[in-house]
């Protein structure tokens, strides 16, 4: 399990390779990359700054990765979340899951992303023309996260 919070860009391919190198038991690798978009709800975004709660952010992510490991038979997980100022097109977050079968890898990656969106202590501030403001939590993200609450893990 690899969990990192960093200002620097990440190399998604290298992280995925690191999970599978030298192994022949992995049949499925799912990589999710979240990218800073140049507009939100139709309005342009010039940049965003990500703030986090050092210590708690790492611990929360590690706890959720552990939770994913109890729900699905995973053979590797990597989560990297960037912080600091990011421009449209910049990568924000990376989740890589490896398993024998694709269903487990897909489910775990979605689970981790849904939790990261709603429970990991990160906050986004957007710079828009003429206004800078904190991004409001999206109800759709809460709904997505809630589906795992009573889930059976399949």
């Amino acid at each position: 399990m690899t969990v990192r919070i960093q200002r620097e860009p990440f190399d998604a391919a290298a992280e995925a390779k690191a999970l599978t190198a030298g192994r022949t038991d992995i049949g499925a690798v799912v990589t999710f990359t979240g990218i800073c978009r140049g507009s939100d709800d139709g309005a342009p975004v010039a940049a965003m700054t990500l703030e986090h709660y050092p210590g708690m952010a790492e611990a929360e992510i590690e706890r959720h990765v552990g939770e994913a490991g109890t729900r699905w038979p995973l053979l590797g997980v990597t989560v990297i979340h960037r912080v600091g100022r990011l421009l449209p097109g910049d990568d924000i977050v990376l989740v890589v899951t490896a398993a024998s079968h694709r269903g487990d890898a897909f489910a775990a990656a979605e689970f981790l992303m849904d939790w990261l969106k709603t429970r990991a202590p990160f906050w986004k501030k957007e710079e828009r023309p003429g206004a800078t403001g904190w991004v409001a939590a999206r109800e759709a993200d809460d709904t997505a996260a809630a589906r795992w609450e009573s889930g059976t893990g399949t």
Partner: protein
Amino acid sequence: MSMKVLYFAWVRERVGKAEEEIVPPEGVGTVAELMDWLAGRGEEYAHAFENRRVIRAALDQAHARPDSPIAGAREIAFFPPMTGG
């Protein structure tokens, strides 16, 4: 007993600082009571905590509820709903 309070995102901006040491008075036993007490400490705090329902808290870096007791905690954090990912 003294505890460290951390503020993040717009709670931090409104309070005007990222962290401070506080000594909650007797009778302040829960997260919600601590927010009430902080809100009375001045205009910037009143502004930060004006809509307490949307503010989340963590006790010693674990998510807490409004009715969670603060006794024994060394660090409490207040922040808006999270928007990571």
